[in-house]
């Protein structure tokens, strides 16, 4: 066993190495990127679906299971204390990552989807009446549509939809017109998973608050690419997923303003979320414990903490600059492909390009690219209403991460040229 002093030296050395390395060198931290797929080196461009994990995250999860594995918030033995400390330390990392005022405003969930469902159920369970309005946008992922439709079904509330323009940008004026005294919640994504459009969240928050509505931000596609600051945004709730920021699957977080969480009833009942239980009734713990019934995904939380450490060492600003340059490079190169059209041309974009190729269905694009080791997403991207708005059935989408590079883009372009050769008029 190393001493605490040695451990700190090791950690400092690791941080120093990460900070001093160029982003290009960080690629070597991701074991899954180093493999052959269908006889070609993998070019992984499906990062909006999920990112690969650096060795540091994989080791943090393995170390947790190898040494500290225990239940949290109970038990006085050494392992339980270690697990609890690691669990709560990760909560503090999440707080700092999105700049919440207090770590009691951070609730661990399975991911963005569960976080939104939590709000739609716990917040939505009280005081949302028939005729009240929930305002979403045409850009939303199914996970930010369906929970509100379910709430509407239960309560008689109405879901309204703010439109976008043909470039895939939110129409702010139209959104403002749709706000009414009955609007209780505005729920929108920060970055569109399908088009990469960045929404003007701070402005939406101002408009919504002026109208007396709360704002929930789906930040699943923002946290990997942008510095997210909930206090600067002024939002009331914000959700993100660990696996899209280099962390494990099955873990994510919900930020909720302290007074809102405090006023919300529990969503699920069980251990850890109570103050006292008797057969005549139970009283509930304060947030965040109130919303974390049952044994949590401790290993996932530890992995998420390690992922946030990793991303912060890499430098989110540096990552953003790199990815922006890559997005521009990819745009220029995609335009070289005959018959290809980029779908989503918002002035502010990050992380992804959706595209269609004339005469070739996106699924065929996906299969052909895969045969050259190029992994992209093809389909409706869990945004069927957006596809309908755009008059499309599906798109192909190439999405980027901090380890993506020009070579990945060049491989995409080469494979697309093969595609046009194969599908060219015969």
């Amino acid at each position: 066993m190393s001493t605490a002093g040695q451990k700190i030296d090791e950690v400092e050395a690791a941080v120093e190495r990460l900070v001093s390395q160029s982003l290009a060198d960080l690629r070597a931290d991701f074991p899954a990127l180093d493999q052959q797929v269908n006889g070609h080196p993998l070019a992984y461009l499906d990062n909006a679906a999920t990112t690969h994990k650096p060795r540091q995250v994989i080791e943090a999860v393995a170390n947790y299971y190898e040494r500290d594995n225990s239940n949290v918030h109970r038990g006085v033995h050494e392992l339980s204390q270690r697990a609890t400390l690691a669990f709560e330390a990760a909560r503090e990392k999440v707080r700092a990552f999105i700049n919440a005022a207090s770590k009691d405003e951070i609730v661990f969930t399975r991911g963005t989807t569960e976080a939104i469902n939590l709000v739609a159920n716990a917040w939505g369970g009280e005081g949302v009446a028939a005729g009240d309005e929930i305002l979403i946008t045409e850009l939303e992922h199914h996970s930010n549509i369906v929970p509100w439709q379910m709430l509407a079904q239960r309560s008689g509330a109405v879901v309204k939809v703010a439109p976008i323009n043909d470039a895939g940008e939110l129409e702010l004026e139209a959104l403002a017109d749709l706000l009414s005294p009955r609007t209780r919640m505005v729920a929108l994504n920060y970055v569109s998973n399908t088009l990469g459009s960045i929404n003007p969240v701070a402005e939406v928050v101002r408009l919504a608050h002026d109208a007396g509505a709360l704002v929930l931000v789906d930040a699943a596609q923002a946290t990997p690419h942008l510095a997210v600051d909930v206090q600067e945004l002024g939002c009331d709730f914000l959700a993100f997923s660990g696996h899209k920021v280099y962390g494990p699957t099955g873990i994510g977080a919900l930020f909720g303003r302290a007074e809102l969480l405090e006023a919300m009833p529990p969503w699920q009942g069980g251990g850890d979320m109570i103050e006292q239980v008797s057969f005549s009734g139970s009283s509930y713990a304060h947030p965040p414990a109130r919303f974390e019934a049952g044994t949590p995904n401790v290993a996932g939380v530890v992995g998420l903490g390690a992922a946030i450490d990793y991303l912060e060492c890499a430098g989110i600003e540096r990552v953003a600059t790199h990815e922006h340059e890559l997005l521009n490079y990819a745009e220029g190169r995609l335009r070289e492909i005959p018959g290809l059209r980029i779908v989503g041309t918002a002035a502010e974009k990050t992380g992804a390009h959706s595209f269609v190729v004339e005469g070739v269905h996106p699924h065929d694009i996906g299969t052909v690219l895969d045969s050259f080791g190029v992994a992209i997403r093809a389909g409706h991207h869990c945004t069927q209403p957006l596809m309908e708005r755009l008059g499309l059935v599906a798109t192909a989408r190439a999405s980027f991460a901090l380890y993506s590079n020009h070579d990945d883009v060049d491989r995409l372009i080469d494979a697309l040229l093969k595609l046009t050769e194969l599908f060219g008029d015969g």
Partner: protein
Amino acid sequence: MDDLRQLYQETILDHGRRPRNFGAMDDATHQADGYNPLCGDKVHLYLKVNDGVVEELKFEGQGCAISTSSASLMTEALKGRSVDEARDLFAQVHAMLTGKQLDDMAAELGKLAVFEGVKQYPLRVKCATLAWHTLENALAGGGEVAKTE
């Protein structure tokens, strides 16, 4: 590229680009919708069945090269066959796509053999079977519109 040409045979690309029997049918006796919620592929199949014989088939819809060409080739293969023969042919196609032993006594696959390469791509098998499942629903549902989900 050779593996790809094994999957995307010339016949498949041709029928994907220029599907045969594509369009609506006013006097259909049987019809059904096929829908794959995972990828969004849609097919609407029209049949004219007379005295146990499939006299006419047409389809509409949107999908990838595999699902479109599969629907197109299916309509060609089934015209003039009995309902029983149509079901037998589906069993043969299904066996081919899932890598099972073909029944030597059953219907000849003919042109439909071009889909054999699909079995190497398990995620794409559902593209090739969508039209066939829709056929089954159309035949089972009589004049009703059936859903495949």
